[in-house]
């Protein structure tokens, strides 16, 4: 019996100790953003400047939008403009604004069996892969990255949903898990550059195609509309928004580099 009360007391002190009383807000971000490592740089600076603890929920774009709709987070940082605008139009978000962009790249086995490195455009590269039936690993999770990938297939005149699982492998998971799968299968994969550079299990893969303007990947910030969810911390969300578009925030974003490469280009409209 004494043992029981001892354990109980210990647990209660832990629960008290873990409570934090600084201002905090919840921000849903995509796995692509988180895996880049940029948040590890920004969050401490935000804490220093604004004294806000930004609690990151790292989920796919689909889940991020759902969390925003349900009012379980205070703001979103995602990269699927069409979905973002629909979100705002439906009244779930107050507004959306550009923060920064990076680009998507096509990654594959270094010896490039489908020979996409020589392709003239992104959609041509994809077409070659489909024609040769080379293994291609897709996010398959309706995330921003996945939607971009599907849009590109569509631009190439192909329907991604009709692809044969013999070569088109939809993992239904985040960027990291998808890259792991591609690495293990030595297949082609569509990813954002930042996640790729920060990924630790590259195996025999490398960037084979990049630079097509259509691979532009815009990140947008959306505060959850307090009219919908009065409890949402709109004031903190606004503070964060102002910080992100401020000269300081934008400079920190631009300064973030991995292996000497800049990962994100800030493009918020100046205020």
């Amino acid at each position, binding site marked *: 019996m004494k*043992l*029981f009360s001892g*354990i*109980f007391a210990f*647990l209660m002190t*832990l*629960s008290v100790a*873990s409570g*934090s009383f600084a201002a905090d807000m*919840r921000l849903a971000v995509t*796995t692509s953003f988180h*895996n880049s490592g940029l948040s590890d740089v920004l969050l401490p600076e935000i804490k220093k400047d604004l004294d806000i*603890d930004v*609690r*990151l*929920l*790292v*989920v796919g774009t689909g889940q991020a939008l759902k969390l925003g*709709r*349900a*009012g*379980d987070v205070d703001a979103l940082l995602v990269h699927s403009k069409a979905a973002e605008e629909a979100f705002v139009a439906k009244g779930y978000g107050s507004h959306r604004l550009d923060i920064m962009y990076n680009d998507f790249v096509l990654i594959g086995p270094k010896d490039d069996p489908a020979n996409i490195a020589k392709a003239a455009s992104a959609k041509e590269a994809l077409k070659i892969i489909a024609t040769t039936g080379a293994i291609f690993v897709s996010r398959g999770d309706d995330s921003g990255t996945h939607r971009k990938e599907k849009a590109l297939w569509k631009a190439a005149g192909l329907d991604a949903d009709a692809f044969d699982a013999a070569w088109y492998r939809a993992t239904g998971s*985040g*960027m*990291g*898990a998808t*890259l*792991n799968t591609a*690495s293990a299968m030595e297949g082609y994969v569509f990813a954002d550059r930042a996640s790729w550079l*920060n*990924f*630790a*299990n*590259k195996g025999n893969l490398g960037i084979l195609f990049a630079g097509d303007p259509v691979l532009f990947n815009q990140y947008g910030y959306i505060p959850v509309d307090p009219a919908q*969810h009065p*409890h949402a911390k709109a004031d903190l969300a606004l503070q964060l928004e102002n910080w992100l578009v401020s000269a300081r925030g934008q400079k920190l974003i631009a300064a973030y580099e991995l292996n000497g490469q800049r990962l994100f280009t800030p493009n918020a409209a100046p205020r």
Partner: protein
Amino acid sequence: MNDLLAGVAAAVRLIVTLDHDLVEISLRSLQVSLSAVFIAALIGLPFGAWLSVSRFRYRRIAIAVLNALMGLPPVVVGLVVYILLSRSGPFGVFNLLFTPTAMIIAQVIIVTPIIASLAHQAIRELWFFYHDLLISLNTSKWQRMKTLLWDGRRSLLTATLTGFGRAIGEIGAIMIVGGNIDHLTRVLTTAIALEVGKGDFPLAIGLGIILISLAIIINLAVHILSRTERAGRW
């Protein structure tokens, strides 16, 4: 193989340097799982005892359902708890989502059937053995439950530790209701998932080794403190 060895090296490095993040998420893992098991045992053990000594019409069905609930998929439990605790859900006002409390709630739901079912099976055997004696001594149902719970405490300990094992290694539910938020709801299992997602297998394995070691230490500590497995002692 390299990953495994690198994993062991990572584990050693983290422990020896008493890595701050490691200590934080380990303590949180223990806090969440021990709390959940404590509550689950508080509910499950008496319930298992009650079920053993009670006779009522739908008893067989109740036992079958209880045993089946042991197989509740954690991720589904997590999803349901998320929906209930979400701000747009019935219990949103309590603002419990994405807190360790939500994780404890989810784990209590998962672990209670396990402890209750195992307790029921253990106590049922003991009840069979004590049956005539306890009836002869004119015991009330409550007295029977107390006696069986006390005399059967070794098996009940095993049942509770089984529940703990399930809780400490659980990830599906707490990922959804906790959100794996850094410094808030990140625990060993969700951290492992995170590192796997970043492709850092050695670190993930290192954390896994630490998780298993933690579970073993807890089990050993409990057995030593309660002096089971000592020769000549029941």
